[in-house]
């Protein structure tokens, strides 16, 4: 699929940047014909992935970097969210719904990412960081106004 646009964000691992990342990605994704409900789902997925990087990857240490790569093809947003934190010891267990290392958390971050996005993939190595890869398609073949032939 032909690449139409791409962007990269790099920001400190502080909670305030969770909102920054999701709004930036949603604004970027809105170049495609996503519905408002789709964009809301993308925002939740980005929020969860960046939140995980800050909380679990870096253990709330605020001076590390989280990276977000986004690319657009004609009908798909592709996302890659990376940290260089502690990594996940047991990926299978981390993906179980309601598994959390913190009693005040629901352990549903990955459930939201998997529910709201497509082609979800998790790569992680102990001590080397975690990468979340996911995409979402607009699911329509509508022709934009002015593009009709």
């Amino acid at each position, binding site marked *: 699929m032909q690449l139409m646009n791409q962007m990269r964000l790099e920001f400190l691992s502080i*909670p*305030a940047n*969770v*909102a920054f990342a*999701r709004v930036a990605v949603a604004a970027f994704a809105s170049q495609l014909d996503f519905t408002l*409900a789709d964009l*809301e*789902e993308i*925002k*939740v997925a980005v*929020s*969860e992935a960046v*939140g995980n990087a*800050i*909380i679990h990857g870096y253990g709330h240490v605020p001076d590390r970097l989280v990276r977000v790569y986004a690319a657009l093809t004609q009908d798909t947003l592709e996302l890659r969210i990376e940290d260089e934190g502690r990594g996940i010891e047991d990926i299978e267990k981390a993906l179980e719904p309601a598994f959390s290392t*913190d*009693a*005040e*958390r*629901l*352990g*549903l*971050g990955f*459930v*939201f990412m998997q*529910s709201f996005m497509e082609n979800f993939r998790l790569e992680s190595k102990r001590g080397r960081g975690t990468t979340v890869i996911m995409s979402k398609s607009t699911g329509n073949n509508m022709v934009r106004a002015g593009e009709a032939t």
Partner: protein
Amino acid sequence: MLLDIEMKKDTLFVRPNGELDLGVADQLRRTLDETIEKGQAKNLVINLAKVSFVDSSGLGVLLGRYNRVSKNGGQVLIVSPQPQVRKVLDLSGLLRIMNEYPNENEALGKIG
């Protein structure tokens, strides 16, 4: 995020305005715990009408307060979530343990 808080009898009404995510979770948790303790609130009514976004960090704060309030025999009621917020609440399973009402008066009526 702005937070409007009101105590009526033994019920605490909380009306957050904005987005409930990791950026505000600690502040929200602290404020709610302090207010519940100070006012000796038995029940909690959370009006989500002005909340435009919630993720699992925001839901974690709600779940934590639910655990606290229900341990003391109280109820947590959700009022008027916007559709995108409701979708996340629903998927999380929180709507199975916290009842949802269209407005605060109906919620208050259920508490009795």
